[in-house]
């Protein structure tokens, strides 16, 4: 009876990194989006928000690409 712990480790590690990355990007994006309304540089805030949302989408698409490519 051998259990492939390393594969399980990979699943756990990758999931943790990807999810935390997505969550931080998305929350930061929303934070920047709401900063547009509370004064300060609208252009900078918009750019940051769009960048964050774009990065989220790219991360998800890259993940799906990895699954399909095999």
């Amino acid at each position: 009876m051998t259990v492939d712990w390393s594969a399980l480790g990979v699943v756990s590690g990758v999931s943790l990194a990807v999810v935390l990355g997505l969550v931080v990007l998305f929350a930061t994006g929303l934070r920047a989006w709401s900063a547009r309304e509370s004064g300060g540089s609208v252009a900078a805030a918009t750019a940051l928000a769009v960048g964050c949302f774009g990065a989220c989408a790219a991360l998800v698409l890259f993940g799906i690409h990895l699954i399909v490519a095999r």
Partner: protein
Amino acid sequence: MDASLLVIVVVFTALAFDFTNGFHDTANSMATSIATGALKPRTAVAISAVLNLVGALLSVEVAKTISGGVVDDARITPAVVFGGLVGAIVWNLVTWYAGLPSSSSHALFGGLIGATWISSGADAVHFAKVLDKVVVPAVVAPLVAGVVALLATYLTYRLSRRTSERVKDRGFKVGQIASAALMSLAHGTNDAQKTMGIITLTLITAGTLAPGSAPPLWVVLSAAVAIALGTYLGGWRITHTLGKGLTTIEAPQGFAAQTSAATVIMASSHLGFALSTTHVASGGIMGSGLGRQVDGVRWGVAGRMALAWVFTLPAAGLVGALAGKVASLGTVGVVAVALVGVAVSVVVWLLSRREPVRPEHVVDEIAAQAQTREVAA
């Protein structure tokens, strides 16, 4: 019974199982979105159906796990697979009627293992493979999803403290829809595979395919369509338990919970772990409940669910063993098993018709709960 006729019967039974799986599991991907009002129930279910279809076409790793080595394909016949399948379907329908989010996947493994064990002996079941690819992931994956969801929820709330309420509300509802979509895709990559695996296994046992073959295209396509149809037509009853019964869900939390569960499932699918998507989704919801507030999980409900999880494999195994034994007796046995399976399905369907839970009811229930909370506050 003519072998090719039996193969056809098994293929249709497997597709029926796939259909009930979609029926059973709509809740996993869409419960949180429906509960927070991010999506209307009908829209949610339609999106979920399409993405299940797409997900089913993405990967065949899990199918290969099932067709290539959980049981000894040289020592079982299509009749045994048939018995195992009927066992799984019966268990699935009964837990569906009771509103328990038990695992379709574990029902399938239980049924298959039970039927193989009783008809060909314990050594025809490859327990090492079962342990590595099914049992250990079954325990580990929901825990991983729970821990990841806990951290993700905590971070989400922490980072959005200074986000305006309006942006937070709308933004996380959109985020939640995206994560629900991912969850449906993930469900397709793991659960539709199980049917593909079973059909491929049947074709191998019948000598139509060589051992170790990947699922043929028609198998992949038909399994994908069956799960999508089942998803579209299914699941209000369980959405009921999972959406509000377990823990009260807010949009940011639903977003964190589902992103976690979907990621864990897709990573696992890629490595061929045949997970229970139900368990992983529940693990994610519970973890996010804890991440939001320490007393955010109703442990009584969670305990009852865990109990149903533990029982699924052996219970479906018993039913599968019985059905597999009878089915392997010959034509009369196969017909008897088929009749019992159909009878149970009809009875459950008739019982469920007496008190139908429709999408409208799910929404009403949530509105009523919200009102109750306002009264209490």
